[in-house]
């Protein structure tokens, strides 16, 4: 793995090279492309110098306006919105599991023999992951109107790909022994899934769910910016009205919730895995 020559005193006949000519040409090519991409991005980015000189003052102004925090805002607006955010994250995660579990068995090579079915499941996962949850939220707000329902659905649809792909990989890694034993004993498909695969993939399942729930708590906090319910609505209102003391309190609340959810997930993970 290193570039150090293997022989202590390389002779002319022994000249070690790590890469073949094709490989080094490809590597040079990639480096050139990356540098070109960065230069291209730098040349077209618009930086308005006046705004940049102003930035430290603006940042100070931001914090000055946030302080003191408007605590009266907490019981009336933030707390209900916070509960809604947590509910959105939980329901979205559960809904995603319900939809992703059958699909991930469909995507696993050792469970599903039909390549077409596997391909369909993979396609659904990729489409779910390629669309950001905010974009899913825009779509669901258009269909169901603003509110928590759109939030739950967008969290769920964004999570299907994540949960499904990772859980499908866990199923593929399952040991075939118990499954073959059950099949040999004449067990039905359902029994094979529940008694053969499930005990093996259960730890992976809980760890994936916890990971996604943790991500979903963060995401559901911003869904309100496009009208999909939760604490983001309070944030959006505070910022639109330029009530930075309220916005600061919302940010502090989100920080606290994210910190607690990270603490909870790490504790639970240590317990069950």
């Amino acid at each position, binding site marked *: 793995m290193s570039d150090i020559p293997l022989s202590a005193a390389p002779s002319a006949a022994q000249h070690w090279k790590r890469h073949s000519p094709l490989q080094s040409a490809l590597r040079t090519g990639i480096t050139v492309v990356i540098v070109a991409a960065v230069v291209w991005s730098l040349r077209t980015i618009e930086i308005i110098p006046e705004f940049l000189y102003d930035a430290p003052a603006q940042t100070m102004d931001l914090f000055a306006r946030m302080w003191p925090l408007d605590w009266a805002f907490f019981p009336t607006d933030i707390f209900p919105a916070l509960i809604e955010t947590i509910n959105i994250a939980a329901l979205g995660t559960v809904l995603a599991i319900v939809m992703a579990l059958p699909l991930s068995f469909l995507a696993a090579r050792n469970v599903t023999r039909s390549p077409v079915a596997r391909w369909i499941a993979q396609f659904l996962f990729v489409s779910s992951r*390629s*669309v950001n949850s905010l974009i899913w939220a*825009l779509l669901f707000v258009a269909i169901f109107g603003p509110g928590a*329902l759109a939030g739950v659905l967008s969290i769920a649809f964004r999570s299907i790909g994540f949960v499904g792909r990772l859980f499908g990989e866990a199923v593929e890694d399952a040991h075939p022994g118990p499954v073959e034993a059950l099949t040999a004993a004449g067990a039905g498909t359902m029994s094979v899934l529940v008694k053969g695969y499930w005990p093996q993939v259960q730890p992976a399942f809980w760890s994936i769910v916890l990971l996604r729930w943790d991500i979903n708590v963060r995401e559901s906090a911003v869904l309100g910016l496009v009208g999909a319910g939760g604490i983001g609505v309070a944030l959006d209102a505070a910022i639109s009205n330029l009530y930075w003391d309220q916005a600061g309190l919302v940010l502090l609340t989100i920080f606290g919730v*994210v910190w607690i959810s990270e603490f909870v997930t790490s504790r639970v993970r240590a317990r069950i895995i």
Partner: protein
Amino acid sequence: MSRPALHRQAFPPNRGKQAILSALIVYLVYAVLALDVSMARIVTGIGNAAHFFDRMFPPNTDPSKLALIWDGMKQSLQIAILSTVVGLSLSLPIGLISARNIAPAWLGGPARVLVMICRSFHPLIVAILFVKAVGFGVLAGALALVVATVGFVAKLFAEIVEEISPKQVEAVRATGASTLSVLLIGVLPQVLPRFAGLSAYQLDSNLRNSTIVGIVGGGGIGAMLFTASQRFDYDVVLTIILIIIATIMTLEFVTARIRKILL
């Protein structure tokens, strides 16, 4: 002497687990009720959906619109590239410093706190703050994604560095090498391949997020998407989403190939 049980249960029920699961179910029922969704709303929603898809198809392929969309997408790509490059060059040192086996606690502690703060907020929220600080535009979005990159890459990179084999580090140190040489020869060769993997992942992730920072004024295609959806131009929305998906899939394919060549 206790009497041997005649009917020992093979799998005794786990009361604690049952209690937790029941509590979870009770909570979920409460959460569903708290959503306050009536059947009527869902029925209207499904009716709306038909109308919505009707307006969405066919996607808008007006050349002037396409040119505008491509402009926005280009900006998103630039945000993604710049934020990844800057974010990665910050994450490498910050990640090294936060690894417990590399840096002393007085240096590592603050670095870990910094990384944790970067991780705590969704890029969109960070973007709001940067829009206030440096004004509307690409720069605010790119800075927000730099923060997101540091939060993710530096944390995972630190964990990777904590898992390295100490033998090579000790061997290099035993030759009397300076701290910098120990890092360059003993530590980095062990972790760089995985850092490259993280970088490729983060580029994809930054591209996904660079398509939404525009919603709060951070530049890129997001602004156009948000406006189009608020103006009910759903055919434009569909075109934008399709272009976003195509770009993301292409980039994912390219980064996967590049990883194969480089590693």
